[in-house]
């Protein structure tokens, strides 16, 4: 079951869902629109390797916007801190950003229950597209789980900026 907008609002008010800051104007019939934070990270290596720490450079999106180029991967962040210990979040783009050819995640839309963070976005565009800090870039939905809940306690917890892949930790003993 997916939560309606009214239910999201109710659960935010009783503390079961975290969306900070929360503004009613972003509430949709069955999702909540989130915004793009101002920091972006880009990998600097030509070949990425999941077994290694891949170096990144950080960019601050200028006021005049940042042009995303196809063939490049940009790790962005959500301006809002979001998550829940009771519902499973799934994030995605908005139809308005999808129509511009912008991916906001790369086949990883499912968030672990208990991950309450400024989640990292995997930005990738089909055609060159300019993005701006603070723009409404995607939406989050909340789903009812079944079964005993064990909360997320992974390596991305507490991230306040876009966080590059920690997959190399899979290969550490």
């Amino acid at each position: 079951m997916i939560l309606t907008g009214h239910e999201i609002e109710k659960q935010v008010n009783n503390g079961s869902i975290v969306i900070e800051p929360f503004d009613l104007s972003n509430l949709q019939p069955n999702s909540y629109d989130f915004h793009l934070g101002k920091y972006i990270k880009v990998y600097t290596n030509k070949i990425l390797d999941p077994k290694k720490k891949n170096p990144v450079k950080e960019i601050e999106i200028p006021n005049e916007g940042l042009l995303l180029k196809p063939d490049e991967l940009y790790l962005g962040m959500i301006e809002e801190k979001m998550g829940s210990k009771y519902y499973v979040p799934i994030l995605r783009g908005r139809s308005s950003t999808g129509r511009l050819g912008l991916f906001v995640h790369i086949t990883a839309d499912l968030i672990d229950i208990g991950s309450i963070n400024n989640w990292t976005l995997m930005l990738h565009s089909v055609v060159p597209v300019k993005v701006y800090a603070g723009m409404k870039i995607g939406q989050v939905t909340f789903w009812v789980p079944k079964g005993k809940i064990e909360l997320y306690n992974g390596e991305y917890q507490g991230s306040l900026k876009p966080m590059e892949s920690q997959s190399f930790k899979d290969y550490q003993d």
Partner: protein
Amino acid sequence: MILTGQEITKKVNEGSITIAPFYEDSVNPNSYNYHLSPELLVIEKSLDSRRETKYKKIVIPEEGFVLEPHKLYLGLTKEIIGSTKYVTSLIGRSSIGRLGLFLQITADLGQLGNSHKWTLEMHVVKRLKVYPNMRIGQVSFWVPFGENDYEYIDLYNSSNNPIVSKLYKEFKG
């Protein structure tokens, strides 16, 4: 409703979900991490929906294989996965999405039915090395609503190899 990690483990133990082999340490708060089989199909450059896809089959060596942008690869899960009671959804992991690897091309929804190894539709934004047996994606399980007594005629579920599109068979004459 989406099953929590503990519920997935319970259903695997009871037999209503198949994940084989099953590793406890691959269970997430609300999904299970699947691994990459060494078999990989490198798909020809230009495709025609009316024709059978041509490809080159390779085995990913232990030292890894670099996936190139603008190309399509069909991979395979190491695990046999499926359920006749819960609906599967296969996606990537956030750690791998952050490296720009798509595991599905807008086709993440599985069907109720037989268990098998799943074909992965792999595509990278930047050059990325992949390794055999790496933890590459995640599968979630969803409670369906409604009668579930049909037999899904799956074009693909009889084999445990990556399988190219059979769309061409839908064209007559």
